[in-house]
């Protein structure tokens, strides 16, 4: 239960960081900062609230999520290759 509250506190702090970072002018970095914080937050939720790190029932779990993320990143990469060099 302590872990849950600690994770929640970290999520709130990260949200505060993201909002205050958006108030400053980071130039090209602002996208990276905002997305980095979003990935960090979803990692915390996936591992602690959704107990992904405790799922040992099937090996598939270890491959499914990176697999889907890889497909998504591939799609994003291919789309931007098309858009940028059209």
């Amino acid at each position, binding site marked *: 239960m302590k872990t849950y509250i600690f994770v929640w506190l970290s999520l709130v702090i990260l*949200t505060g960081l993201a909002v205050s970072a958006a108030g400053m002018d980071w130039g090209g970095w602002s996208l990276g900062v905002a997305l980095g914080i979003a990935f960090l937050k979803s990692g915390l939720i996936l591992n602690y*609230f959704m107990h992904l790190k405790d799922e040992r029932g099937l090996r598939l779990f270890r491959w499914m999520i990176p697999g889907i993320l890889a497909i998504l990143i591939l799609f994003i990469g291919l789309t931007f290759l098309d858009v940028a060099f059209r």
Partner: protein
Amino acid sequence: MKNHKDNTVSTLGMWLFLLSEILLFGGLFIICSVYRYNHSRIFHLAAESLNRPLGALNTLILLTSSLTMALSIFFLKNRRSERSLFFLFLTIFLGLFFLSNKYFEWASKVHHGVYPNAPVLLERERGEVLFYGLYYSMTGLHGLHVLVGIGLLSVMFVSVLRGKIDHERILPLKNTGLYWHLVDIIWIFLFPLFYLIT
């Protein structure tokens, strides 16, 4: 032993569904980033007109509702069904709070004549039409997911109340929790995409 295996398969099925949801929203995220790339200046101006404090408040509401969801499962596992029900109720309440904020946010935009296919909006530049089209469809689809989540949570509430779900048969509550956390994760990406990156 058989029960344990069934649980694993059921959790796996839930995860497969959640991953298909990630791909559904992922496609929309790709559309959004391509249009942002093509119309970056106008997207910048339109994003600044959104209500950032309200967006931040809604983020905090959903994060807190994820905590209460996790606590509800935690207490039911430890046979404290009253506490579990209390946190489940709190989760439903926070979900409704999120939706009511969303309603006021949309209502103020509609009041200014900014809604899909609105005459005021169509006179503006193409990038702005695209921005609001994406804003309404993506936050709308997410809001629909929150609404479904509230429905599922209410069914869970009644089931726990009637003792159909308890510490031994906790799986439906766990899977509902997984869904609720995913809805939270989607918002974690929607929030910077529309409100923060300008």
